């Protein structure tokens, strides 16, 4: 038997033992345990070291709000830091480690920080940023000097560096009623709504439905509340119109009643079942939402309130009743309200000695006095705890007389010997989701808590969320909320009967006991009451500034325990009532959300892919694929032992020597059709298309409305009213949207339709001195000679029996043809072309060789049409028609767009015969230590087999005027420096004699 496990009781399965490790040591627990409860049962009291001072810390809470016991869970190479041990369900083989300690939890050298407590007080970081005014470490240098040490000393868990192999899913869900929280209120709401026949989703962040029913020790309808909850959940599970989501945290409440939730599907399992994701992100659109999110118990702020062994009172009750674990043998309670008396009775019943109940109130009700005597506890009314004792575990505490009205202490200190101190500072409704939805919280002075106000979205509150802290109220409000949300009439049927320990829900307005020593407000960020006062003395009066200066409430727990006590202390410092100080609005997410769950299918295995019709052929023929957006395209068809450079140089050279073929199916293709199609193209292109003859193609350039270059491509006139526009691969979607916008919004009178036909056509570009001969040998139904198929001409014929459309146009600068066929026949045509090319040594080439040949020709792509360049910058001003207005024509001549020092397209030749890098800068003189001002940058580079040199395209200030001059490439990041010659971007065959044939 483990030292703290009770003989009986709890909702754990004592017959199932589970083995796990914590900080490398083996432990056991039972099915139903959390890491926190299993370790506590095994006698562990020290769970972590605090953020700044490295103080030993134990468990404060039992649920999601736990600020101290943060652990890192390891799964293979993957580490997930900063998970509350209270939220980790144990499984066989679980490996968890503690955080923020060097070298070990028990002996941590960082604890020396405690001696320097004054230095690390509020605003420490800000003061360090500023630093001394003079001296070698003046200004921000001081921060840079300190940063290394601070980063090591202050912190939470370390993130892993290995890629996350887990799979995540996104689900969209729709329901009439979403119930958040499955305590008695949530269960009643879900049941009432489900009985109306509407679609219900019930979500709870815990593994088991029931909320407080699982540990309250109360009874409902004559049975233990936990059994009642289980029965309710089972009934709900039997309904077709109900979806139950355990382990699901609703973390965001957005407009239109859209809520975001994270389901931890397999985090609690040793092995995931086939097909199960690790986590599932739910986007839930709900007609109505019932918020039954309960409340958090608040800590009291007093010296030493962070010592291991000091715990929230309800958390102790939960460890006893839900997990069968006693937090201590000799227990004292410290409270400002009645709820702790119930905890005292529960601990007594479980076998602990309750040595004292210290109540700040002097007038304790007779009912509570009776409970104290039932627990055989000494009642110290009108007293307060002023100190705690012990090292890594509590050994005792000191109490003094206390006046709850003035806050003053009097009389002698008295020692109480205890190994566990349970505190209750009242309760704060969990109003985070309501606050996210836009509602401003309202202070209730009798509850001493922020309550949700009137809803700003379609939600209804129930139970402790509304400040109704008793189970009977929760049950009544839950049923009413469920009925209202489902549109049902009120019921007269009797409500389930609750037997509970009575108590007044209103606490005394006492948040802090001011005595000597560190009293913690924010446990996770190590913010003390004195830090809050210091911030006030230094002039921080707004609650938002206070938060940022002290970092109160800004840790991973987002101040779930500390918000209200922190506000109360500040209000006192300001001499204002709490509602006048105000509160901050809660923002999503409620708890930490994995980035993986947000990316979900858009990453890894399930990312959508676009494959060309010839994709399988490329793979089968040794292509190395390259992903461009969603597309996959061959990069090279490498031979064994070839480097990438060797492969593309061979491919490009063979194309220029004989012939090469490349898959161009990814080019965007848009059918532009209708009586006004030619007029429309005249408006969207800078050059004229209405004059283009049927059966001919033309290269076109589009600008944006602001006059900058947008996209280029060839457009083919297939008929009087029928054009096929091609766009760059990357801009296909953007161009389509651009055209649709103008047709729909600006020029609705134009009779034109645009249709994306990218996926209907397979395209192959075949180029080189022998390209025409290859085509001639396999095309039927048309000639391809110069008369029939001139430059930019279009013919229709057949290849391997498949109808094809052939346009003679060239990107490579060679005599070249683009052959289009129906996508389903792409591979057949491709293979026929390959076969026909065999006698000519036709090579297949990929993106690298394509890029090499276009750089040699000085053609532009997206690297040069980068959203900052104009047609003039790219030497495309010859395409700007003066005969008509077009999109961008009014704006393209603005002063800044025609300035002489603009970056212009040029060619570069590396004079040191070494490869250049994209992104490298061009400078006038070489100084590797202090590079001169950049003249521009390299946009594309390659080894040119045609020139036998390393060349590049670049955008350089006043580029044309620099032709024939020398400059230097300066690329300190990649340590590439060297001389280059600036030349025209038309490196190869500038007069185009090769493609014109």
């Amino acid at each position, binding site marked *: 038997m483990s030292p703290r496990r009770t003989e009986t009781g709890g909702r754990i399965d004592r017959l199932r033992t589970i083995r796990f490790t914590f900080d490398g040591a083996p432990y056991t627990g039972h099915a139903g345990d959390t890491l926190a409860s299993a370790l506590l049962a095994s006698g562990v009291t020290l769970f972590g070291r605090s953020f700044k001072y490295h103080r030993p810390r134990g468990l404060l809470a039992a649920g999601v709000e736990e600020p101290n016991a943060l652990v890192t869970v390891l799964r293979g190479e993957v580490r997930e830091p900063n998970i509350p041990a209270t939220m980790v369900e144990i499984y066989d083989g679980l490996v968890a480690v503690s955080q923020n300690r060097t070298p070990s939890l028990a002996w941590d050298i960082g604890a020396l920080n405690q001696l320097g407590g004054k230095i690390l007080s509020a605003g420490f970081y800000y003061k360090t940023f500023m630093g001394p005014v003079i001296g070698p470490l003046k200004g921000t240098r001081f921060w840079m000097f300190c940063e290394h040490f601070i980063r090591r000393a202050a912190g939470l868990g370390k993130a892993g560096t290995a890629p996350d192999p887990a799979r995540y899913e996104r689900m*969209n869900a729709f329901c009439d009623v979403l119930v958040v929280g499955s305590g008695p209120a949530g269960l009643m709401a879900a049941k009432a709504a489900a009985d109306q026949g509407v679609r219900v989703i019930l979500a709870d962040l815990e593994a088991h439905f029931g909320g407080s029913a699982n540990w309250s020790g109360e009874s409902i309808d004559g049975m233990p509340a936990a059994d009642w909850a289980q029965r309710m959940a089972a009934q709900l599970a039997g309904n077709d119109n109900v979806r139950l989501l355990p382990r699901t945290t609703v973390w965001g409440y957005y*407009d*239109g009643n*859209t809520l975001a939730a994270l389901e931890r599907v397999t985090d609690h399992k040793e092995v995931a079942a086939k097909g199960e994701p690790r986590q599932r992100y739910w986007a839930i*659109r709900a007609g109505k939402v019932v918020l039954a999110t309960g409340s958090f118990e608040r800590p009291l702020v007093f010296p030493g309130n962070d010592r291991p062994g000091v715990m929230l009172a309800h958390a102790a009750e939960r460890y006893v009743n839900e997990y069968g674990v006693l937090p201590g043998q000799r227990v004292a309670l410290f409270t400002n309200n009645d709820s702790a008396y119930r905890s005292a009775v529960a601990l007594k019943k479980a076998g602990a000695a309750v040595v004292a109940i210290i109540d700040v109130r002097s007038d304790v009700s007779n009912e509570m006095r009776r409970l104290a005597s039932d627990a055989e506890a000494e009642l110290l009314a009108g007293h307060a705890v002023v100190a705690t004792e012990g090292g890594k575990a509590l050994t005792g505490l000191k109490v003094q007389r206390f006046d709850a009205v003035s806050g003053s202490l009097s009389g002698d200190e008295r020692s109480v010997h205890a190994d566990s101190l349970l505190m209750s500072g009242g309760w704060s409704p969990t109003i985070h989701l309501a606050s996210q939805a*836009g509602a401003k919280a309202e202070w209730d002075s009798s509850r001493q808590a922020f309550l949700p106000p009137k809803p*700003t979205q379609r939600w209804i509150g129930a139970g402790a969320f509304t400040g109704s802290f008793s189970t009977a109220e929760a049950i009544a409000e839950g049923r009413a909320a469920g009925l209202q949300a489902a549109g049902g009439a009120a019921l007269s049927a009797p409500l389930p009967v609750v037997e509970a320990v009575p108590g007044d829900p209103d606490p005394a307005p006492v948040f802090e006991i001011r005595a000597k020593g560190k009293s913690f407000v924010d446990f996770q960020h190590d913010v003390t009451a004195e830090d809050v006062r210091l911030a006030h003395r230094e002039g921080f009066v707004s609650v938002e500034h206070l938060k940022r200066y002290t970092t109160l409430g800004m840790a991973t727990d987002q101040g779930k325990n500390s918000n209200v006590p922190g506000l109360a202390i500040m209000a006192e410092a300001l001499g204002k009532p709490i509602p006048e100080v105000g509160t901050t609005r809660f923002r999503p997410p409620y708890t930490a959300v994995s980035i993986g769950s947000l990316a979900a299918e858009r990453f890894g295995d399930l990312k959508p892919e676009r494959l060309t019709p010839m994709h399988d052929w490329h793979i089968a023929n040794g292509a190395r694929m390259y992903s461009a957006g969603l597309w996959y395209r061959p990069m090279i068809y490498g031979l064994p032992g070839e480097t990438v450079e060797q492969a593309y140089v061979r491919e490009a050279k063979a194309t220029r020597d004989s012939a090469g073929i490349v898959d161009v199916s990814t080019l965007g293709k848009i059918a532009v059709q209708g009586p*006004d199609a030619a*007029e429309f193209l*005249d*408006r969207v292109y800078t050059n004229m298309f209405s004059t283009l003859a049927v059966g001919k193609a033309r290269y076109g350039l589009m600008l944006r*409305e*602001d006059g900058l270059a947008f996209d280029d491509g060839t457009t083919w006139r297939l008929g009087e009213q029928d054009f096929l526009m091609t766009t760059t691969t990357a801009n296909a979607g953007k161009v389509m*949207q651009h055209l*649709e*916008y103008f047709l*729909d*919004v*600006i*020029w*609705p*009178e*134009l009779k034109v339709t645009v249709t994306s036909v990218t996926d209907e056509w397979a395209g192959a570009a075949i180029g080189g001195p022998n390209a025409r001969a290859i085509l001639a040998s396999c095309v039927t139904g048309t000639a391809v000679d110069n008369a029939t198929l001139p430059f930019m001409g279009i013919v229709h014929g057949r290849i391997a029996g498949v109808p094809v459309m052939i346009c003679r146009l060239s990107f490579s600068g060679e005599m070249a043809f683009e052959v289009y066929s129906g996508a389903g026949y792409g591979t057949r045509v491709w293979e026929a072309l390959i076969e026909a090319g065999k006698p000519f040594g036709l090579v297949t080439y990929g993106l690298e060789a394509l890029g090499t040949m276009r750089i040699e020709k000085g053609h532009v792509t997206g690297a040069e049409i980068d959203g900052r360049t104009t047609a003039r910058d790219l030497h495309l001003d010859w395409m700007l028609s003066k*005969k*008509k*207005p077009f999109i961008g*024509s*009014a*704006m393209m001549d*603005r002063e800044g767009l025609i300035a002489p020092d603009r970056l212009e397209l040029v060619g570069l030749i590396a004079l040191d015969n070494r490869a250049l890098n994209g992104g490298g800068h061009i400078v006038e003189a070489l100084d590797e230590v202090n590079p001169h001002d950049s003249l521009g940058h390299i946009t594309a580079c390659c080894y040119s087999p045609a020139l036998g040199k390393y060349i590049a395209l670049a955008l350089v200030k006043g580029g044309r005027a620099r032709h024939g001059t020398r400059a230097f490439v300066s690329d300190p990041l990649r340590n590439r420096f060297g001389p280059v010659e600036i030349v025209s971007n038309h490196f190869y065959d500038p007069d185009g004699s090769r493609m014109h044939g």
Partner: protein
Amino acid sequence: MLITCPYCGPRDVIEFTYQGDGNRERPQPPSQDLDAWNAYVYDRLNPAGDHNEIWQHSGGCRAHLRVVRNTITHEILSTAFARGGHKSADNRAEGRS
């Protein structure tokens, strides 16, 4: 956010693409009035409240909609086809020269 497309009914905002301030008026080409063009290309109203916007149902029927949306609450007050209701003049005659 739900936008009710007149063709497709109420659809999630994820299906739509924001296409900007719906109050802009495009000068009629061949106007070279740079102030007017500047206003059209760069000036945007940024009201805290009801705003007249253009959205495209890009993940659906691809129609452009004129949407009145409250920028504070994200409430959609009205939706209609942008086509037809827009102030753009018929500049077809000026388009040819």
